[in-house]
């Protein structure tokens, strides 16, 4: 065998060996974990503990999203963290002390969308969807979200008085939400859920911060107020 042929065979064997090593370990050396993490990390939270103290309140540690009992009712912390994102960053309603402070059109649009979708970030249609709803559905959704339907809903721009229905092109709100629940402060029949939102999975850049207050009404948790920045 010629010397050059020996070198070629050696090189080929080396290549095979290299490939086999990487194959055997079952890990693509060129794929970073961060590059692959996508949808399932939407609600991933840090494990870091950080107790907060406040008179009259008891608090969850930072990063915990377990359901919390408020006034004898279980409140899903994750759900309301997401609600605060929807209102503050998808509907641009960053501050209200009570639901009646919400602009009518924003409240109705928010309630309308929740008739059809539990979470805005799940709305991953390729384009907008036409939807219609009855006044009763809108009122039921407002009560479910805010505990009140004390809105002049038929004055909303989504109301078609000719057909007596509400109509809407529901946007494709779908997105990833990266957040950490900083604290859940509970007092009596109310809970404040303080959440920090980020622009990316690595949580390097701040999107904003929101404090949503949830109260128990008729044994159900409803949104009372929101402050976000």
């Amino acid at each position: 065998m010629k010397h050059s042929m020996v070198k070629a065979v050696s090189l080929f064997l080396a290549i095979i060996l290299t490939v086999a090593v990487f194959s055997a370990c079952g890990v693509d050396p060129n794929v970073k974990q961060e590059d692959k993490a996508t949808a399932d990390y939407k609600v991933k939270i840090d494990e870091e503990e950080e107790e907060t103290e406040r008179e009259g309140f008891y608090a969850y540690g930072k990063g915990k999203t377990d359901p919390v009992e408020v006034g004898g009712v279980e409140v899903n912390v994750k759900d309301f963290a997401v609600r605060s994102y929807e209102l503050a960053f998808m509907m641009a309603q960053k501050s209200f002390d009570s639901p009646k402070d919400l602009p009518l059109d924003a409240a109705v649009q928010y309630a309308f969308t929740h008739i059809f979708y539990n979470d805005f970030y799940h709305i991953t249609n390729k384009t907008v969807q036409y939807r219609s709803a009855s006044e009763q559905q809108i009122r039921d959704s407002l009560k479910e979200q805010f505990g009140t339907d004390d809105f002049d809903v038929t004055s909303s721009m989504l109301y078609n008085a000719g057909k007596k229905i509400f109509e809407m092109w529901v946007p494709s709100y779908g997105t990833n939400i990266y957040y950490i629940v900083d604290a859940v402060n509970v007092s009596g029949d109310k809970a404040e859920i303080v959440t920090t939102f980020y622009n990316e999975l690595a949580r390097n850049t701040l999107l904003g911060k929101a404090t949503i207050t949830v109260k128990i009404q008729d044994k159900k948790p409803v949104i009372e107020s929101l402050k976000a920045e």
Partner: protein
Amino acid sequence: MKKIISVLLAVFLLVSVLPLAVSAEEGEFKTVLINENGDYLLNENDYDAVDIDGVTGTVTLSNAGVYSQGRSAIKVMNNSDVTFVLDGYSTVMGDSSNFSCGIEVELGSKVTFEGEGTLDVTGGKYGAAIGSYGTGINIPEEQRVQVGEITINSGVINAYGGYRGAGIGAGYHVSGNLITINGGTVRAYAGEQGAGIGSGYGTSGGAIGVAAVGEYTAGTIIINGGDIYAASSKKDFTDFSSFDAINANEVPGAWGVGIGGGYGASVDLIEINGGKVVAVSGASGAAIGTGRGTSKANQYNPDAYHCNIRIGGDADVTAVTSDVTKDSDRLGGAAIGTGRGCHTGGNIEITGNAKVTAINASLSPAIGATKKVSPVDGVAIPVAESIVIGDNVQLYAVSAADYAVDKDASALSINDNYFGSSDRWFFGEDAAAIADVANVKVESTKGEQMYTAPTGAVSVWSRIKAAEEQHDEPVVPEKDDKGNLRIDVPLKMAVVFEDGTVYYGGEMKEVEVGKEYHFQMCAVNWDNGTFDDNGNGIRGTVVYTMEVVHRNEFKELAAAAKEDPERYTVKGIDIIDNVAKKIIIDIDAKDTHLETDVNNFFMAYRFHFKGQDYNKQTGIAQVVNTPLESLSVNLPLGSTITCNAYHSYEKVDSADVFIENNSGEGVYDDVYLTSVNDYTWER
């Protein structure tokens, strides 16, 4: 040496772009464990089992075979997010003797199917082909098996549920979660009494509050595209020429459904937005909707039993319920709606440009609730809670023994504006009312399809005109009454119609006289003057309607509208119905066009800075990407914009704004303007 390095480098590059061939353990059982993120390949080998544990990545199935014993063939678990890329023809089978699936998707995990290949996948005992396995006994919810999320984007998937499991979805005694189909060809068949797509056999009756009828659910099923064939058993189902032909397709999966909940299971939501869907069920279960319920009040939870179905977009849906048992005690099941033995027909909404054919060969309306007594009191006859059929829907519904559409629905909304009057509906209530129903030939609204009612039909309900004189001849369609309309849009805006077509200023649109068109307002990307769903511009949320009419009708409408100036704005060529958010346009007018007004159709926003505006700019994501000084921009109502403030083109602030019509804030030179909203940066 340089050559060697070059070759090694090339090899590394090659390794980086090729999926890794999974090396199975040699020996009696070739079990593969994938527990690191990455891209993997299951090739032409046969495997005994594959575990995907906590992985985000892709697994290419390339002519692979996975045949398991005693467990699911492929298990996706521990919050995995896996895309199966289909290549060639692969086969995956669970164990028919043990609780198992073809591809088991644990709660918290998510699987997506892509590629152009074919996958034959079969469930094991009590298991879905793709989804979860189940249990042989009825157990409380907190103890039940649960299933993760399933998405199909492309490929050909033939899914055969195991005994009492769904084709795609949940197993026996298990609720569904979320199934999304965006494309591909899917043929999904249930095992006994389950759903082709949805949940498996739920229950025939357990204790209320523990596992009663209605407390299981199919979860949410969303179909946006693809060719989907789903049945409660594996049978051909192509002949709808007569009810005998339909019934001849013997379906052992009676009581199950094509798409929805298996026996005893509710439906959170079935939403069909596009694609071609054919769904077939045996007796007692719906083709699309819920499976059979129960006749026993103590095993039925009316608070939990529910059914929500929405069909819209351009979906082409055929739903057929057969009558295979020939046993009147077992009949029922709507083509679209609920199965026999429940208290409600649910909420059914058919809108958009959907084309729906619903055929029921059994004792039930084609659309609505089965007319057998409610299990709640054994007396009440169930009705649908609501049925909505939109203006542009092309509907053909027929029943062998009941009303084609549940006319007793608590809320029945059919706005027949397309034809202008309801007498165009061919609505037969019984055999006597339709003397020769078998020979009724009807032509669709779109002039594309001919239907002949199946032999034995007693009720046909169609948004289709029936032949009145010569039943044997097709209806001669009226001469096309169309015109051309110029679409005028405000500066830097576009109009998008329901079918997705985008019109910029000055473009012509062919329109049918008397037809309603839904549209929405959009802002374009100022940089390229374009609107699309890929980051150029933003859409509004308010639904507007346009209709063109001929001169004579327009004059009559205009005269009437002038009597009600609060509601109507009458101009030379159009009438704006401010109540119905509708524009009626004279198609015969010279220079006829669609024109949209500020405040009603969009809003002008001006951006200022506290103090002075000099050398301060505003930009709006997707609209004004190049920031501008003293920006004034037309924006669609109901949208949420993200705007940024700049000083000398350095970003200094950001804000989200919900776009509403006039808030009364528009003040300029002491003149109150109703056509503008001002936004002032506090900088």
